[in-house]
C-alpha cells in the first residue's frame, strides 16, 4: 500500500525482490546501494538481517529517494525476502503492503524447478494476503547469465513468463551490475504509471 502524503508532497512505495535461495536478490540491492547516482542524503543505509553465513534471515532493506514525479518527493523502499523454503512466514510478512515485485530467477538449468516453485509460492503468498499477482506491477530478471550452465532465455520465458499478458524481463549478471538498473527502472516506471492510472480512475 503506497503512502501518499499530500501535506508534505511525498509518495512512498514498496518494491520487493522475490526469488529462490541464492538467486541474487541481495546482490541486486548491494549493487544498487553501491552504484546508484544520487545525493548521499537521498540514499539510506542498506540494512541486512542475515545469518552469520550471510544468508538473508528476515529481509534486506534499502530506502532511496528520487524526484520521479514532478512536485512529489518519491521514496522507494526496496526489500528482499529470504529465499530459503523454510522462511515462508517471513516472506509473507515482507510482502505486506507491496506495490511492485521484481522476481529474480537463477538462470542455471538445475535451478529451474526452484524458480518455478518460488514463483508459485509468490502467487500463493499474495493470495493469502488477498492480493492478485496480475494486479501488481511485476518484472522478471534472469540472473547469472554469465554462468556456463545458464539455460536459454527462451526456455526461461516459457517457464516463467508464459501467461496471457507477458511482463517485461531482463537478462542480468547482478554481481557485475549488468541488468540491475534496467530492472529497477522498469519496475519503478510500471509502478508509477499504474499508480497514476489508479489515481486517475478513482478521481474520475
Amino acid at each position, binding site marked *: *500500500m*503506497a503512502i501518499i502524503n499530500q501535506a508534505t508532497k511525498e509518495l512512498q512505495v514498496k518494491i520487493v525482490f522475490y526469488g529462490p535461495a541464492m538467486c541474487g536478490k541481495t546482490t541486486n540491492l548491494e549493487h544498487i546501494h553501491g552504484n546508484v547516482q544520487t545525493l548521499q542524503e537521498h540514499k539510506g543505509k542498506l540494512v541486512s538481517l542475515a545469518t552469520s553465513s550471510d544468508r538473508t534471515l528476515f529481509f534486506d532493506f534499502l530506502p532511496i529517494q528520487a524526484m520521479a514525479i514532478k512536485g512529489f518527493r518519491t521514496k522507494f523502499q526496496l526489500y528482499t525476502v529470504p529465499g530459503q523454503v523454510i522462511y515462508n512466514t517471513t516472506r509473507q510478512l515482507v510482502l505486506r503492503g507491496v506495490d511492485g515485485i521484481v522476481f529474480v530467477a537463477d538462470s542455471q538449468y538445475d535451478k529451474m524447478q526452484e524458480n518455478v516453485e518460488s514463483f508459485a509460492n509468490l502467487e500463493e503468498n499474495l493470495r493469502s494476503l488477498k492480493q492478485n499477482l496480475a494486479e501488481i506491477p511485476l518484472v522478471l530478471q534472469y540472473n547469472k547469465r554469465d554462468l556456463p550452465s545458464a539455460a536459454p532465455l527462451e526456455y526461461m520465458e516459457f517457464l516463467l513468463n508464459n501467461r496471457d499478458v507477458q511482463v517485461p524481463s531482463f537478462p542480468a549478471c547482478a554481481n557485475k551490475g549488468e541488468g540491475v538498473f534496467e530492472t529497477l527502472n522498469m519496475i519503478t516506471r510500471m509502478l508509477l504509471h499504474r499508480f497514476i492510472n489508479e489515481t486517475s480512475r478513482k478521481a474520475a
Partner: protein
Amino acid sequence: MYTLPQLIEEDLHTLDGAMRELVQKSESTAALLIDKGGFLITQQGSTDSFDGTTVAALGAGSFCANKEIANLIGEEGFASVYQQGDKQSLLVVNVDEHCLLCVIFKSQTGVGAVKYYASDAVKEIAAQLKRAGERSPGAGFDLSVLNIADTDEIFRSKTA
C-alpha cells in the same frame, strides 16, 4: 492497487498534535507513526539521532514477526511489543489494521507511563486515520502535478 489513506494537512496536523502531546507527557524521546508495510508516515520529538525510515521498516517487521509468534502459541490479543534497552527503550503499539505507533523513550522512564499516554494517542490517531480513509480518494489530488514523462532512467549507475 490500494493507495489510501491520502493524508492532507488536516490529517497531519491532528496526527502530529497527538504524537507531540504523547512525547511531552510521557517525556519520551520520539514517536513515529508507521504503516505495517514498513513506511514512516510521520514523526515527532528528537528524531535527528536516528534514521526514522529504517526504524519504521524494522519496527513494522519486528511487530509483525512477534504477532505471528503470538498466533503460533495461541495468543490472540496481541497489541504491543516492548524492547527494553540500557539507554533507550522502544514500544510499538498497534493503532489499527494498517498502522503502528512506535515510541522511543529513555530506559529510566517506566514503560507503564508510556503505555498509558500512548493509549490516548492511539485513539486519536486511529480516529483521524479512519476519517482520512473515508474521505473521497481523489479529493484534493491535483493530477496536473503528476509528470512521469522521464521515468526511463529514474535511477542511474555511477559507472554508466
